[in-house]
């Protein structure tokens, strides 16, 4: 800690504190006192958090087979996985979201029975489309990462297990997958932060996460910068939380780098 607090750092920290204090006092924060906006902000932050968590989980569950298919599968399994990853990584996420929501939406009038089906309450709302689009995006990017991770596990271990007669699924479950995940953990933290930064895009399909909430506040009050500053602070805070979480996760699993 003493190392960190060199004289120039102390000056910079004081300057930063002064800047924050000036912002807090001279800019217009009156809208924060409004309970309606406070509720919207809390709801928006909650929505952002659950979108990131759910899409990362589903995306990783999909990414494992996609990475495995590319690392170990025969050509008729690895080629589709390859194509999927290339398309997802080669096109903008915004376009994927719009294609899913508005594209599928434009098909509904031509399928009359869909309004009577059980799926209809879900197809009406925006969040299923956001979850699907973001999960597919995670699966595409993490599929590539998992491919590298699976390929990076020392081949000798897999051969030894095979030589001992271990069935392929047990081999995957006990040796290949845990080590691949171990390798990928540092990258996953960065990828989760990337996912967090993609969440504002779902505000364009009517989901009121924190970016849309600040948009609403800006539009109601005509204040331009202060809500955006709050937004930046919120995202920096969430990024910090994610980084801390992954550091803790990495610390928990003992690694012996050979």
């Amino acid at each position, binding site marked *: 800690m003493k190392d960190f607090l060199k004289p120039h750092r102390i000056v910079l920290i004081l300057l930063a504190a002064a800047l924050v204090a000036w912002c807090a006092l001279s800019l217009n924060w009156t809208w924060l006192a409004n309970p309606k906006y406070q509720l919207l902000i809390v709801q928006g932050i909650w929505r952002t958090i659950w979108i990131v968590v759910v899409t990362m989980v589903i995306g990783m569950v999909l990414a494992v087979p996609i990475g495995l298919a590319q690392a170990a599968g025969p050509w008729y399994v690895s080629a589709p996985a390859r194509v999927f990853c290339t398309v997802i990584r080669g096109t903008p996420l915004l376009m994927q979201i719009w294609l899913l929501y*508005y594209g599928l939406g434009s098909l509904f009038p031509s399928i009359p029975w869909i309004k009577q089906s059980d799926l209809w309450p879900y197809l009406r709302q925006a969040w299923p489309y956001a979850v699907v689009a973001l999960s597919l995006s995670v699966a595409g990017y993490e599929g590539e990462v998992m491919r590298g991770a699976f390929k990076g596990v020392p081949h000798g271990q897999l051969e030894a297990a095979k030589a001992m007669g271990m069935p392929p699924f047990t081999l995957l479950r006990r040796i290949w997958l845990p080590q691949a995940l171990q390798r990928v953990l540092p990258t996953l933290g960065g990828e989760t932060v990337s996912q967090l930064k993609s969440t504002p895009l779902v505000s364009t399909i009517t989901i009121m996460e924190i970016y849309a909430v600040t948009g609403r506040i800006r539009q109601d009050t005509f204040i331009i910068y202060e809500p955006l500053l709050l937004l930046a602070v919120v995202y920096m805070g969430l990024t910090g939380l994610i980084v801390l979480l992954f550091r803790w996760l990495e610390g928990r699993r003992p690694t012996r780098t050979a």
Partner: protein
Amino acid sequence: MKTLVLAAVAALALGTTAMADPLKIGVAAEPYPPFTSPDASGNWVGWEVDFMNAICKQAELDCVITPTAWDGIIPALTSGQIDVIMSSMSITQERKKTIDFSDKYYNTPAMVMVAADSTITPDAAGLTGKIVGVQVSTTHEAYTQKYFAPVASEVKVYQTQDEANQDLAAGRVDAVMADSIALQAFLDSDAGKACCKAAGMVAGDAEVLGAGVGFGLRQGDPLLAKLNAAIAAIRADGTYAEITKKYFAFDVYGE
């Protein structure tokens, strides 16, 4: 320091059009027929575009259409990205705190549009428990939040009016509230005829819905007098009526 910034500005200005000549007219970058919509070659056409051309000719200004995102159009004006807002923006007291408005150049009531087989009425009773769609940053959104949000099951907010119409056609919202003429244009199109119908006009509220549509300008801009004079001249010499006849069967000026 000054020279450095000036040099940077000069470098940036190399990529720009000549200073002070063309007037940048901000138009929402979305199809909003019959007032403004892009055609296949990327040109903007519609009643408002013809009106703008007549005004600019009358006031001897060189006008250039600059598409801008609707929900950022007022900040774009105040920060100098555009000089005039001409995008069917209603004149309201709330907006007047930030920008100036010219005299109104049209005034049409607001309407609710619903699915073809729906029985919804355009009031709070009819919209109880329904999903209502509106465009962000509009007087219609303010009206919906004030009257319908307390009783509706959800208010979905869209970036453009077009998206709201599409979701009504897809069945994701039960009703859409917007300007009656813009909605009528949608209802006259193939997609609109197939899916939807008008439920009727909403009860008026001049404070929320505004007193007609006008040009938006930065506060204190001297252009205001020129534009007002041009609007009056066009109304007087019949150009306004001529333009309106091409698109509508009635006078959109309103009272």
